[in-house]
């Protein structure tokens, strides 16, 4: 218990150091910097050039679809990792289970493919079409 407290003390010390460093930097820049405000002062610093337009570009919806698909399919790999780690222990039964898992995923993939969620560009049907119709 004693040891733990010691480590914690050092952790607290570390946190304190970080906080004071940040405070120092912000305080120094406040003290040393210009106190004058102009139109460009609040802008993000872009090599002195006043920025044009919004920084938020509208992305194509296709990006969203792919992003969502990526999130989902990427995560399934986690389960396969777990299986791989225990491959010897679970044996044939584990293999069958993993196979079922993959097959279900495959079915989903087939559905997505038929739906056109994987198509890129003009042939993209599902969301693109709805976009067009608006």
């Amino acid at each position: 218990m004693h040891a733990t407290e010691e480590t914690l003390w050092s952790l607290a010390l570390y946190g304190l150091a970080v906080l004071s460093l940040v405070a120092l930097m912000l305080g120094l820049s406040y003290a040393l910097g210009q106190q004058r405000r102009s139109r460009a002062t609040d802008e993000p610093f872009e090599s002195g050039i006043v920025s044009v337009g919004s920084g938020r570009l509208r992305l194509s919806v296709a990006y969203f679809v792919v992003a969502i698909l990526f999130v989902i399919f990427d995560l399934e790999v986690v389960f396969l990792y777990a299986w791989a780690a225990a491959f010897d222990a679970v044996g044939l039964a584990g293999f069958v289970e993993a196979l079922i898992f993959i097959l279900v995923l495959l079915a989903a993939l087939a559905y997505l493919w038929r739906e056109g969620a994987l198509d890129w560009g003009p042939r993209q049907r599902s969301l693109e079409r709805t976009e067009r119709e608006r």
Partner: protein
Amino acid sequence: MIGAAELRALLPLMLVALTAIGTLLLAGFRRDARLAALGYQGGLLLTLLTLPWALPEQPLEVTPLLRIDGFFGYFAALFVLVAMAVGLMMQRQVRSKTSGERVEESYVLLAICLLGALVLAGAQHFAALFVGLELISVASFALVAYPCGGRPSTDIRQRNSLEAGLKYLVLSSVASGFLLFGIGCLYLDSGSLAFAPLPPSTSLALPGLALLLVGVAFKLALVPFHFWSPDIYQGAPTPVAALVATLSKGALFAVMLRYLWFGALQELETLVPAVALLASLSMLGGNLLALRQRDIKRLLAYSSIAHLGYLLLVLLAIGHAGVAIEAGAFYVLAYSLTTLGAFALIGCVCEAGDEPDYRLEAFAGLIWRAPLLGASLMLILLSLAGIPLTVGFIGKFYIVAAGVDAGLWWLLAVLVAGSAIGLYYYLRIILIMLAPQSEPSGIGGGRWLVYGLTLLLVLLGVYPLPVLQWLPVL
């Protein structure tokens, strides 16, 4: 290890999963709503028919997660039937829409919901509880918001549905967070996720159970966690609202029954007042909120809050009253049947026109326009109010019996008070229905489902023995 016996016991789950995948593939390769509906209903029917065969003689533990026994069988049969009815309602809605909305996927989502419910019915482990619950939740987020997937328009229905979907998603996730945190605390305390008798009130298990209660109370829409439910009922398509009202609440209640089976609530004295508080708040609050509500779907949401409040009595009575679990199981059946009937009727009456009209006035003069539908509505409302000769009465009778056995006098008093308030707004609808017809408006399809459910409701209200005989198996 999974052997032949276990596989056989898992058959219902596998069949439902196969139905989901099959319908998904069907939807991908042939765009045909009727075909999808056929696949869905066929799969479910097969599940229902093989269920008696699949159930093992003795309770069977399939992996540490699931326990397949009579309890599972009862609820599985109930949930499959509910899902089939919801599917039928969905089908009717499809037929009445010509806008080219794509509805095939909704059957997939329904099947996934059902799968979650079956997992919950058999769960004896927190991991199974979690998986089942989230299967239902995530699928129903999508279902609630389903109409917005079609052509975007300024249609109020789509806007409401989108709003409902997002609200449900965010709030439900918050509740899931609480639930998981609670489970985490319990796990931290005991080192096991299997359902077990309630732990002694050590410092960690108690907040864990409290947080678990928060999550459960949200999903069951108990006051003060009820805020989401009227909005979701109103915004979601009617069949989906029926699904959320019956399947997801029923499944969660089933798993709670199972959990408390392992150890009664009374053993943990400190938790009892919390549950009792939730129950009485729900019974009173739900009925009070419904009192002058003008939207039939919101009204049903409030009424179902009150009904879940009545059900909580059962959780408190477990361990004291022998009939408690039976009472809970039967009430879930009664409540599901009646609520399904109500929503089917709403689909039939309120959505006949181009714009759905969910005001209570939509029912004006129904008894003169469509006498049988009017009679059905009356019976459904009487069942909700718990008037004799309906299944609602038997359910309430059971609950009161369990409450009396357990000596929960205060809660019974609240139940009576709540029921009295409830009578007011149920009878108000009947009054509106009996009013002279104001404007002629059409009646949508799907009335046979309403008749069927109403008939069942009266049959079980008059002669509940077939179900009651089944109950002691639990």
